[in-house]
């Protein structure tokens, strides 16, 4: 069973639907006991870090995530779920889960292009340059684009944790991971064929990763 964590951070309908298109047993849950029984976890989310952390703690899902991480279950973080797995977020100066070392930073609002100031949030399709091979990224071609909507980005403490990068006025980590955890700043569930491929790869992944 695949558990999609519902901690009241945005609309999970599209994440659930994309997985349902690929796998028979998908459960959207707020229940730590269901999470404990799941074979793999999807940790999505949009919204503000502080509120999200408060909901996770109230529901006991912070603990459930820690346990799944320690137990080696495959975990996929998406968007906000790729941010609050780090130790701290600049969004509302929020202490986060700390599954991986690092922090969440704001995209530079003063970055400029030929057209003037970059718009924040970074919204739309952008390329991801895969910098490390990973089973979940198998088959994704150079130049593939994914759908982003965000104002903050994950900045892990070590370059070893960065699997993919994206350029938006600055280069930022758009795929991070270690061990049984992989997380994307973009939304694979809304990223067409290559997004679905990434989700399918995640479903096939045993949660091990050797560089």
């Amino acid at each position: 069973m695949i558990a999609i964590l519902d901690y009241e951070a945005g609309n999970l309908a599209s994440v659930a639907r994309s997985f349902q298109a690929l796998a028979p047993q998908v459960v959207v849950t707020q229940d730590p006991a269901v999470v404990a029984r799941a074979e793999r976890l999807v940790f999505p989310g949009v919204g503000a870090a502080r509120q999200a952390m408060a909901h996770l703690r109230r529901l006991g899902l912070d603990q459930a995530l820690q346990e799944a991480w320690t137990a080696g279950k495959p975990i996929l973080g998406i968007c906000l779920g790729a941010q609050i797995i780090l130790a701290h977020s600049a969004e509302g100066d929020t202490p986060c889960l700390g599954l991986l070392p690092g922090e969440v930073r704001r995209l530079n609002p003063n970055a400029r292009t030929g057209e003037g100031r970059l718009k924040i949030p970074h919204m739309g399709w952008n390329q991801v340059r895969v910098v490390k091979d990973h089973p979940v990224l198998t088959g994704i071609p150079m130049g593939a684009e994914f759908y982003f909507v965000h104002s903050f980005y994950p900045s892990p403490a070590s370059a070893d944790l960065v699997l993919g990068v994206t350029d938006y006025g600055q280069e930022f980590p758009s795929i991070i991971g270690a061990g049984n955890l992989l997380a994307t700043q973009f939304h694979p569930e809304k990223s067409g064929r290559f997004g679905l491929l990434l989700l399918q790869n995640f479903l096939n992944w045993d949660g091990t990763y050797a560089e």
Partner: protein
Amino acid sequence: MLSKRIIPCLDVRDGRTTKGIRFKDNIDVGDPVQMARYYYEQGADEIVFYDITASSDRREIMIEVVRQVAREIFIPFAVGGGIRSLEDMRAVLLAGAEKISVNSAAVKNPEIIAHGAQAFGSQCIVLGMDVKRVPVSDKIPSGYEIVINGGRTPMGLDALWWAQEAVRLGAGEICLNSIDADGTQTGYELTLTKLISEAVPIPVIASGGAGVPEHLYDVFSQAHADAALIASMVHFGTYTIAAIKQHLQAKGIKMRLLW
């Protein structure tokens, strides 16, 4: 770099697409679900549906369309038309849409933008603006006025002011439709699009007037639109999305070419 988005727009009445959309490929051109799937496979970056069903008690038909579309396409899509309340927004989002577009309801009750943004996040809330060129006056200093009812009812609001007000209220994106250009196929309203796009920190989707790929080039390169809405150009089979994208990429506009 971020790609410029191309967004086909489908008008839906009582669960069926309108206009004489002509297609080959054995698809039911009256079926919004099949049309959405077709455009998804053709490389649309996003899709917009406008529900032009006259009667509000038939809204459930559109919700069912949204549900079916959400099972077929895996790119963002927005739904507009007839959304007047937080409950209307919630129904559309839970059915699987990524964004909701509010237009006249927001003009009449601007707080709906703020309430929607608080409840669902700014990224969900698109402000649709129908705009008409008028003489510059104290009331309309930009010379562009907000209109509703398909352009028939001027609202006495300056378009530039309204765009900035919508940002303040929490809109995440603006879909900017020129009533003057709409249906002409002679090109987007570049002056208007540039004015609004440069004045707001959120993405602007240009709408109204597209007839040939060069019109999209103009609105991206000269007016700095972030996305362009297209309708008859592709609905009548004159162009494919792939051909439009190739034209633009060749002229230096960044496009999503792999899908």
